[in-house]
């Protein structure tokens, strides 16, 4: 009974859907639709998105990966016109390349109640070379109008069995119906990694298949002529298939303060774990974290690069010869690598030219610089290990994959704790990694190839502490001295923006950041001394810092430093807010009031916080004679704040903006 019900439903759904989504069977109803029923703001929608990836045996080439794509897109208005252009990226390397074939594409319009279709001209398919490793094919459909539908299908043949494009299940526009299938022979075992908020469970099944090999057999019989005959032989194997059937997938919408929206996009990645050909041993690519790490470690561009020493030995021995303190040794080597090496902007955990060449050229990619660093630290007798990292742009690695990581840093284990190092940035400090590398957790690799997770988000808060002494004049103008101290990530961010740039320009930007405030005696103390925080100081004159109404003066005691806008403007939010690192902002302000005025009222001192101590705000104001003392602290205690706290976060900032805007009232004596 149960089985028949399921079968029946399946059957029904096949008859209703299969018909509709055949290529070319675009209905009048689809064309007549003017607004997306599940999302009225959508400018376009996938009515149908289909992809099937499977293997095909090709004589002399072996197994090829074939991907068939069929998409039908409804375009509601001009904002959706971009969906009439399709771009397909194709990879290549020497003679191995991906091929795009069998493109068929049509535009459908409703003209006087009739469906009118127009074919894509083959001449309108363009091929572009993007780099040595990447081509791009593009086409755009004709006669795109509001309400039209475009439909295309094509296939891509690829020799890259270890590089299956992600299945994207969520797009910037809604998807009405999605079908996807992945099928691989038993020789190739893939891991399937699901990402995003949608519940995605594939239906798994197995099928039998065979390949028929035909061999020519020659037999020669002494003096007689050689005869050839053909023998065919069947190889039977099992195919594993997983298929997906989803409907009404909502659009993915961008939000501010998200580190990478693709972390939340629903998708599935098939990553090759191992190959197992008949009568041969298994060849591992990745399965578990151990396998991934082993795989990366054993690659000649990683493990053996780490073991090379000869190229630096003399230099490092000379550098640390007289120093025995391990921490000092770590600092010396770290500074040495930062000074010597320049990062060429390439991300990878594999070396490119190799550490030796990089050392000689003084230029390298991330792996060259940080593996070299790790190796030198080990040479100095320190417990140094490479740490695989995924940059913020690369997304969060949720599953054991090689592609999950794209970056490597170094970690030295001291009895007092870990020291994370990245020598690609001159101004990075121990345990202050560049912001792009602050992405949840990394994986630290031991000498034996084992690995474990390591938290990358900093524990120490980054400080910005401002001390200001000001004179408020009767006309509302403000004159004073400003001094700020920045540590950790705040210091790194400052150095990145300040040191290598034109100072005059910097100053002008600073002045104009505060609407043309006049700055003099500007000074940054020892910006290159990374052992010290950044201390910036200047004198300033700023006009109109108080409202004068009748015989009263009104002003916020934070003046131009107050936050005037809540950065969180959306009413709701689906994804976590990412502050990158925990931070503390402190203001200590001392105000000399103008003569002839007395304080009539002041804002109340007080404090408030976000739930679970995620954020804390304190405000303390006191008046003595003609002086006002203000202390304001605001702390963000976590790097990441989950959407469950969004309403609280927004309210917290709203309250913060309000409190910072509260005014002191002076009245004329």
């Amino acid at each position, binding site marked *: 009974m149960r089985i028949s019900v399921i079968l029946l439903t399946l059957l029904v759904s096949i008859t209703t859907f299969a018909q509709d989504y055949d290529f070319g069977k675009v209905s009048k109803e689809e064309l007549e639709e003017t607004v997306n029923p599940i999302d009225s*703001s959508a400018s376009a929608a996938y009515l149908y998105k289909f992809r099937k990836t499977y293997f095909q045996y090709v004589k002399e080439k072996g197994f090829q990966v074939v991907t068939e794509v069929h998409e039908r897109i409804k375009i509601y*208005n*001009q*904002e959706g*016109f971009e969906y*009439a*252009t399709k771009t397909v990226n194709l990879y290549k390397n020497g003679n191995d390349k991906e091929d795009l074939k069998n493109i068929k594409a049509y535009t459908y319009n409703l003209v006087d109640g009739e469906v009118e279709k127009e074919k894509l*001209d083959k001449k*309108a398919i*363009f091929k*572009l*070379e*993007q*780099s040595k490793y990447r081509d*791009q094919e*593009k086409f*755009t459909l*004709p*006669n*795109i*109008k*509001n309400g039209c539908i475009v439909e295309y299908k094509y296939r891509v043949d690829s020799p890259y069995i270890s590089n299956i494009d992600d299945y994207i299940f969520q797009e910037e526009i809604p998807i009405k119906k999605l079908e996807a299938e992945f099928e691989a022979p038993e020789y190739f075992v893939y891991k399937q990694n699901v990402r995003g908020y949608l519940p995605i469970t594939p239906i798994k099944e197995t099928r039998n298949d065979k390949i028929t090999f035909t061999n020519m057999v020659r037999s020669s019989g002494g003096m007689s002529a050689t005869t050839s005959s053909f023998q065919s032989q069947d190889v039977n194997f099992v195919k594993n298939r997983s298929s997906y059937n989803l409907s009404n997938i909502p659009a993915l*919408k961008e939000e501010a303060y998200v580190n990478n929206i693709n972390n939340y996009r629903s998708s599935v990645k098939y990553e090759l774990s191992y190959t197992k050909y008949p009568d041969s041993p298994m060849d591992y690519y990745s399965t578990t974290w151990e396998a991934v790490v082993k795989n990366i470690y054993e690659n000649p561009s990683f493990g053996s690069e780490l073991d090379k020493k000869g190229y630096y030995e003399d230099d490092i021995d000379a550098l640390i010869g007289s120093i025995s303190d391990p921490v000092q040794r770590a600092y010396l080597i770290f500074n040495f690598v930062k000074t010597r090496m*320049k*990062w060429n*902007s390439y991300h990878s955990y594999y070396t490119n030219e190799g550490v030796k060449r990089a050392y000689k050229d*003084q*230029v390298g990619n991330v792996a060259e610089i940080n593996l070299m660093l790790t190796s030198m630290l080990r040479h100095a007798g320190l417990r140094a290990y490479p740490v695989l990292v995924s940059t913020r742009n690369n997304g969060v690695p949720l599953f054991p994959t090689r592609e999950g990581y794209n970056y490597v840093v170094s970690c030295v284990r001291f009895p007092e704790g870990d020291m994370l190092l990245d020598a690609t940035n001159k101004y990075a400090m121990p345990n202050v990694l560049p912001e792009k590398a602050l992405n949840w957790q990394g994986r630290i690799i031991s000498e034996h190839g084992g690995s474990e997770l390591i938290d990358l988000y900093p524990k120490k808060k980054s400080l910005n502490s401002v001390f200001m002494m000001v004179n408020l004049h009767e006309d509302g103008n403000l004159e004073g001295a400003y001094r700020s101290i920045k540590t950790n990530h705040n210091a790194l961010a400052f150095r990145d923006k300040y040191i*290598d*740039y*034109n100072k*005059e*320009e910097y100053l*002008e930007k600073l*002045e*104009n950041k505060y*609407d*043309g405030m*006049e700055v003099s005696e500007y000074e940054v103390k020892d910006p290159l001394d990374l052992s010290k925080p950044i201390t910036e100081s200047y004198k300033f004159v700023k*006009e*109109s810092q108080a*409202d004068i*109404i*009748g015989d*009263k003066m*009104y002003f916020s005691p934070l003046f131009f430093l107050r936050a*005037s*806008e*809540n950065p969180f*403007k*959306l*009413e709701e939010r689906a994804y976590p807010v990412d502050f990158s690192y925990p931070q503390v902002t402190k203001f200590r302000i001392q105000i000399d009031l103008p003569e002839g005025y007395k304080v*009539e*009222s002041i804002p109340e001192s007080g404090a408030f916080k976000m739930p679970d101590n995620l954020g804390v705000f304190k405000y303390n104001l006191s008046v003595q004679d003609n002086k006002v003392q203000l202390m304001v602290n605001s702390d963000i205690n976590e790097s990441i704040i989950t959407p469950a706290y969004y309403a609280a976060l927004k309210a917290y900032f*709203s309250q913060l*903006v*309000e409190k910072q*805007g509260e*005014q002191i*009232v002076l009245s004329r004596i």
Partner: protein
Amino acid sequence: MNFKFCVNIYVLFTTMLVFGQENLHQVNTIPPELLEKSNAVIRLNEVTYNMESVQKMHVQGKRIITILNAHGDKHIDAFMHYDGNIKIKDLKVLVYDAHGNLIDKIKESDFKDVSAVSGGTLYSDSRVKYLSHTAINYPYTIEFIYDFTDENTAFIRSFVPVNDFLVSVEKSSYTVNYPRDITIKTKEKNFDDFNLEKEEVEGIIHFEVKNIKAFKDEAYSPEFFDMAPMVLVTSTEFQLEGVQTKVETWNDFGNWMYHDLIKDTHDLSEATKAKIKALVKDEPNDYSKAKKIYEYVQNKTRYIGVQVGIGGWKPFNASEVDALGYGDCKGLTNYTLALLQAAGIKSNYTVVYAKASQRSFENDFVSMQGNHVILNIPMENEDVWLECTSQKLPFGFIGDFTDDRDVLVISPEGAEIKHTKKYTVEDNLQTIKANYVVSNEGAIDVNIHVVSEGIQYDDKYMLETETERDLDKAYKERWGYINRISIDEMHIENNKTDVQFIENIHFQAGNYAKKIGDRMLLTLNTVNRNTHIPDRYRNRIWPLKVKRGFKDVDEIEIKWPAEYKIEAMPKAITIENKFGSYKTAIETIDENTLIYKREFIIKDGAFPKEDYDAFRNFHKEVSKQDNAKVALIKTNL
């Protein structure tokens, strides 16, 4: 100490011994004034155009640039565009450290070689080879050497020694060698403050400049093209994609473009022509016919750039655009022209420099200019200009992309320079009518009605197609200074006929009026505060240029709770100066109601640099007055 001294002596000594360009690789030979406000110094830029014939030119160049800091990296500019007409003979880069030691050599094969297709273009056959270089230390010097031949001779590059801000020039020289059958014309621009050395003998033209300090970008300055010294260069005889021509006057130029590139592309099927005739048959005049046709084009087509060979200059056939429903600016403009023709309306293909900076055609210098094409329809009172790549702009509205500049209008009879529509202060009007009520707690409930015209329409019409979520965000950003804003109604009307953008919004904001004890402080101007204060410069260098003026007129009715009375009220303000005017007035209607009126005008115009501070102060004062507050005090009723 002694050792260091020796080194210095040694450096000095070698410098003196070195001849020619060798010392251009060392940083210490840069004249100090060229280091001021500069991220990079062009030590030498030497280029020679050998016009072998009308069909071919041979270009050789060497560019030595010292990059002083990380901002300077982007000025390396070691790249070369090429296509089927360009043959690269040599391309290489030498890299030197600060002391002039050669540290790297990059061969042509090590340049990155990719398709040069910019955003917005689907396909073009242009490619580019470029150097991707990582600096080890600053400063460093790059010597870029190139040599190529080009069978398109229409584009001799002009002599533009300064081509970007914050880059100084030690020496730049430029030579054209040309045969008897070619005439080279030149025009010098902006050399009042710079010395141009030139030599002209038959067959050779040579220009040279030395020691030009870095230019600084300043807000409200004239277009770069009107400040930087340059010599425009063109040859009267040239070849473009295999076709040769000779142009001496704009008329020649127009004739060539019309006959060789445009004329035979106006093919339309009889069916399409008939369709267009039917479409406009009930329209009373050419203006309304043209409007109907423009809207037809907007509904039918979209912008897609495809440029192959001559297609970079010659439009797609009208029949092709008709069939595909897309084209680039040339194709879409030409298609509109053909449709208008079918309806018996004459219109002209028009070449323009498009960009908000209002760069004009060089009136008196006949040459290939411009980067975009629009359509001109001569009408009795005023010419109509059409941007044919937009599906959204109202008929006859071109906005800041092509307004108020000289353009080249091409007709079967030849060509002439015309000036596009200028949007005046009165044209760029924004009118606000609003009312709000303040609650006992200081919350406000606001109704606002905004009508925008002219360039102010241009600034806002994109909002029409925003999703509700993004529109909500856009308003929260426009009124970012209002905390706790919550918008519950947003009605937008895009009136294309009158070119008016109308917004009706209703919102609330808690704690808007600041309660301090018995007082409530209320900023009168809720919805249109000037928050823009032009940047301050310690020493303004460039003259002041306000490209477009505008006028804002606001009227807001404000009501507050009965128990509050006015304690102090801002004064009415009138400021008038050469930059514009600002007027506010407050009318008390009854004890709990007033009307706040505000008019703010900025006029367009050009002023000497000495006026910049006053201009800036005017904005500052407006910004201050826009924050004027009423103090209300609680009274015991």
